[in-house]
């Protein structure tokens, strides 16, 4: 399929138009039935485990899609599969990842390199380890400009300073020459954001961008992300386990459990009328005004071992509603338009 033949001249000029499958009307990011497994090497722990099992979601321009779930539920691995930076041993075993219709999994390494950082980028959780400790931050941001354009080193460094200024780092020109360890946690995360947003990509994946930060800095970073997102109508994928942050930032929420989508809904629907017992448990665990002195409703137990998944519904072993029919894996039931729940008992949960 050629990308350019049936497009208007304006589309043909788009930098993505040279990649096969480009469709400006397609969602910025569409993940379909994605599967990730660790390579089967007998004797190695975790080998052969399916860690992402048929995850689908799509994003919209200028909107935020939040992916929530406990540690190990596969939310980060899904994002890494999208970026093509899975850890050693893990590999995509099925499904597709499309950026404006372009099949990212089908691209060769060089083509992918031209898209990464330019059209889709990622903000990592721990900026201290995600930044190279021995290169100045200005240089590391400038690398994005140099990798995707014919800028001289000088010009790229100037652009880097401009980006540092844009993420509100004081004295940007001077700070550009500093190394990551010379910044505070919040400032480092700003550097990461500057790097990810340098070329105004269509999609930005933020993997727990505020986990390592204290609460006031968290708020600043989320605000900065929202501002930058609005400026260029970036499609943001926010990975988090903090239901509070997600409530403030997300337009749509995907709840993941044990490598699968448990529930998916517009944010207000999900918070107002959860239709999966796991979602409800997550919401019940949020401390609220008036809950002082009373124990929180913390979900008991641990997620299943991906090497030894339970039969049927993976949430069954921790679920109060689990019954005979939960021995079979639940399909996604449509709760409402754009609202789906993978629970046999979704009516009970939603109608409480």
């Amino acid at each position, binding site marked *: 399929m050629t990308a350019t033949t049936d497009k208007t001249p304006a589309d043909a000029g788009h930098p993505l138009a040279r990649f096969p499958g480009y469709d400006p009307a397609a969602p910025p990011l569409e993940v379909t039935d994605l599967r990730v497994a660790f390579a089967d090497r007998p004797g190695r722990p975790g080998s052969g485990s399916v860690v992402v099992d048929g995850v689908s979601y799509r994003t919209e321009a200028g909107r935020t899609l939040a992916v929530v779930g406990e540690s190990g539920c596969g939310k980060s691995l899904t994002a*890494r599969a999208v*970026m*093509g*930076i899975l*850890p*050693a041993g893990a590999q995509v075993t099925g499904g597709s990842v499309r950026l404006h219709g372009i099949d990212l999994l089908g691209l060769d*390494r*060089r083509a992918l*390199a*031209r*898209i*990464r*950082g*330019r059209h889709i*980028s*990622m903000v*990592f959780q*721990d900026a201290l*380890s*995600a*930044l*190279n*400790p*021995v*290169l100045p931050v200005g240089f590391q941001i400038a*690398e*994005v400009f140099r*990798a*995707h354009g014919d800028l001289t080193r000088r010009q790229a460094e100037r652009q880097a300073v401009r980006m540092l200024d844009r993420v509100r780092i004081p004295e940007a020109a001077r700070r550009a020459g500093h*190394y990551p*360890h010379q910044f505070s946690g919040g400032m480092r995360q700003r550097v*990461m954001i500057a*790097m990810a947003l340098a070329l105004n990509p269509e999609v930005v994946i933020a993997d727990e961008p505020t986990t390592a930060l204290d609460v006031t800095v968290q708020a600043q970073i989320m605000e900065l992300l929202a501002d930058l997102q609005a400026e260029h109508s970036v499609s943001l994928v926010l990975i988090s386990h903090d239901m509070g942050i997600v409530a403030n930032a997300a337009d749509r929420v995907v709840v993941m459990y044990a490598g699968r989508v448990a529930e998916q809904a517009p944010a207000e629907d999900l918070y107002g009328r959860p239709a999966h017992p796991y979602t409800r448990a997550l919401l019940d665990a949020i401390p609220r005004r008036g809950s002082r002195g009373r124990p929180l409703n913390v979900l008991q137990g641990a997620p299943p071992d991906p090497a030894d998944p339970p039969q049927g519904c993976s949430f069954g072993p921790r679920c109060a509603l689990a019954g005979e029919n939960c021995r079979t894996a639940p399909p996604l039931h449509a709760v409402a338009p754009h609202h789906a729940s993978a629970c046999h008992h979704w009516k009970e949960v939603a109608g409480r």
Partner: protein
Amino acid sequence: MGSYLLRRVLLMVPVLLGTTFVIYAAVYALPGDPVQALAGPDHMVTPAAAAAIKAHYHLGDPFLVQYWHYLVGLLHGDFGIDLNNTPVSAVIEASWPVTVKLALMTWVIEAVVGVALGFLAALRAGRATDIAVLGGSSLILGVPYFITAYVAQVFLGVKLGWFPVSGTDDGWPLSYLVPALCLALLGVPEISRLTRASILENLGADFVDTATAKGLSRARVLVRHVLRTSLIPVVSMLGTNLGYLLSGTILIEGIFNLPGLGYQVFQSVQQHDGPTVVGISTLLVLVFLLVNLVVDLLYGVLDPRIRLD
């Protein structure tokens, strides 16, 4: 930084005093009569001549007085006179270029081959290349290097005649090639193992994923982010190795008859030539200390997280 440098230089003073003292004492304690050694075994030395020589070299003074005389001379830049009545500084002047040429050549081979093999082994970790590098390294380390040197001398020099057997008549680089290779065999396994481990550690680092996610090419990620960061400990080891090479090539210089500093020390020990042994040894200690200082300063440049103060 300035105060750090000053402190390091000042620290060298007691180290140098200590080493010269130990070396001086060791030479003093050597069995045999230096006067007789000077005259040669077949010559009778008249008591008057012996007394004159003893007075001239302060040989009759107590040990500490002798050491004091030597130290005062050293501080004036005077390494003393050896038993052939040549100033030790002249011996040093004639032999240091040989040692420096040999050391630098060895060092470059070590660095280039070691880092290249380590890089390759890390990228192919667990596969044939990696195992071959490991096996080769173990084999080389298992054979004492003077045996390798003799074998190389016989095979490459005598049998095949490709290289000079010994001496420096063919000049640089031909006369130095085989000795440098033999010496480098000692450092290459060390450097390549360290490089491999360091690269493997950094290959899995988060900042490598960041670099990939930025859209950098694989080559750029590997060179700019992985190699650059992995070389920090390697540079440190290379620096220390240069110090060793500049100060300790006695065996190889002996085998290949290269009249460098190590060779001179070896000869002087046999001839009970105290001033030469102590003089050259002191110089070598000083070089070793200076090289180490430079390495430590370089470390601060390569790794901005390290503060020198």
